[in-house]
């Protein structure tokens, strides 16, 4: 059941943000390039930016309606907004920051977010992760009916990010509120949200589960966000398959249909690297020298021509991969997704 209904147009500097999004008690992540309008969505819902058209309703109550001339002030909408840089009040202690939103649940929230020991500290004395928790506690102290999180993890160190993310995931699951979460990072979106909406230049280009986005990226931005290789070429029908001549010369086949200029999307983990043409069902083979070889965790990323392949540390050692060596990168026609190139990829 949808609790929050958003259907708005917000004019921005060089384009307009247009968004229609119904939201139940789930977490929807908004991802997209810088300047796409993600923060603007949150600001419009919170009442900090005024749409030129449309309506925002929450459980039957109208927060904004251009037709009926309604525009509730931010303090009259029950939203908890966590700002990207947290926007903690520097002149107040942690406790007073939280109490600013509402005094009823301060102690409960201090405890729940493990802030008890820090209650009297000033924000300037806190680490990034602690600040993030204070910002969250403050937003929750208001007893909001909608939670809006603007890049809550961006300001964190890489080594604290994972644990804060896990805590946040727990919390979001517990509080059961309609939640919109803006992030630059697909991994964050995948961990925290049930649905991921992709906003590019003010438009929602795709919204789906994280897995579905990976399985079928609707546009080049989504593809590169999810970590895919993106190369370009010219497509034409070839029996049941589509034949694509890559710009660099190689011909590959895809089970997707398409003609003319297309983008080809292949995920690194769907590319096998071998010394010669392998004896498997892969239809596509790109031969080239290894230009780079990087170990990350227990995996090795191998750059072969325009493609990045990913292989396990074990097989990389077995194949004695090394930079400058000649290898074949193979991938199936089913793993070769085609995208129309409406706009030049960024």
């Amino acid at each position: 059941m949808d609790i929050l209904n958003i259907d708005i147009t917000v004019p921005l500097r060089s384009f307009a943000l247009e968004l229609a999004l119904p939201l139940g008690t789930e977490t929807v992540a908004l991802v997209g390039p810088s300047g796409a309008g993600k923060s603007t969505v949150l600001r419009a819902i919170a009442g900090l930016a005024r749409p030129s058209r449309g309506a925002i309703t929450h459980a039957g109550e109208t927060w904004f309606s251009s037709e009926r001339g309604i525009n509730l002030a931010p303090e009259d909408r029950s939203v908890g907004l966590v700002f990207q840089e947290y926007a903690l009040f520097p002149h107040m202690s942690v406790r007073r920051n939280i109490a600013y939103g509402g005094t009823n649940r301060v102690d409960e929230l201090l405890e729940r977010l493990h802030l008890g020991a820090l209650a009297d500290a000033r924000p300037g004395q806190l680490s990034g992760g602690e600040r993030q928790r204070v910002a969250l506690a403050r937003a929750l102290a208001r007893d909001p009916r909608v939670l809006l999180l603007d890049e809550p993890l961006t300001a964190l160190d890489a080594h604290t990010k994972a644990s804060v993310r896990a805590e946040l995931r727990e919390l979001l699951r517990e509080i059961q509120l309609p939640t919109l979460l803006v992030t630059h990072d697909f991994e964050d979106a995948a961990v925290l949200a049930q649905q991921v909406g992709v906003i590019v230049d003010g438009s929602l280009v795709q919204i789906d589960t994280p897995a579905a986005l990976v399985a079928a990226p609707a546009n080049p931005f989504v593809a590169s966000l999810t970590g895919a290789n993106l190369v370009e070429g010219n497509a034409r029908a070839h029996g049941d398959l589509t034949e694509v001549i890559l710009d660099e010369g190689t011909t590959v086949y895809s089970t997707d249909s398409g003609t003319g200029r297309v983008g080809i999307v292949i995920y690194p983990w769907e590319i096998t690297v071998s010394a010669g043409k392998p004896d498997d069902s892969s239809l596509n083979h790109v031969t080239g020298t290894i230009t780079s070889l990087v170990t990350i965790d227990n995996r090795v990323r191998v750059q072969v021509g325009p493609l990045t392949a990913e292989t396990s540390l074990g097989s990389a050692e077995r194949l004695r991969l090394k930079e400058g060596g000649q290898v074949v990168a193979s991938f199936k026609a089913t793993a070769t997704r085609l995208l129309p190139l409406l706009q030049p990829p960024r």
Partner: protein
Amino acid sequence: MTRRPLFPFSLLVATVISGAFLLLPLIAIFTRIPLSTLVDQLGNQVVLDALIVSVKTTLIAQALILLFGTPTAYLIATRQFRGRSLAITLIELPLVLPPAVAGIGLFAAFGRSGLLGSTLRVFGLELPFTQTAVVLAVAFVASPLYVRQAIASFEAVDQSLVDASRTLGASPARTFARIALPLAVGGLAAGAALAFARGLGEFGATIMFAGSFQGVTQTLPLAIYAEFENRFEVALAIGGLLVVISALLLVALKIRLPWTSSTSTSLFLSARSRSS
């Protein structure tokens, strides 16, 4: 290698010259005042009267400047409107008036036959030659210095903190009182210090609009003028007293509230960006 220190050296030279130029006259005045004369002034009835008038009117003027100037500055700082830059220029304009002309302007506006004269008379108010007139004269010449600085300080308050306050359920009034004001307080204090200094030294507009009635409108600068007729040293001694008092007050105003030192840099920085 010999050329390198030229720049820091010339900075230092310029600073020494500026500092000497600004301080020498102050120091020189003190060399002319016998210390005993300076101390004696505290027992001089004219000086005591003038001191009381000065402190009283300057404090009231300062209160009015803060009371009306602060919301004015907040409005100008937080609203975008056409002619905003013109509005700031108009606020600066009183600074350019020679003091006597300012006094005439006050007369022409608030005097008996001034623009608001008949309106004020309806309320039984006659301002010229009253202590109220001193307050108005001081406020008129000093407030531009405060308002201008206050605008800059409010502009410097991080907008996201204001937004955060609103989304946390605070009204604009509460946001102003609990967020904008405490965060701008360092800059406001600096502006108030400037205005206070200017107000305490105010002479020309006061003598024109308020006259120089001992015990009523005769402030310390007016008493200095009156004492020139009498005893030259005494006049200078009052001047020295004024400088000492102001220096003490300015230093006291500089004692910032505890958290402002940590935020002062950021205030400054963000101030620039918006103003430029």
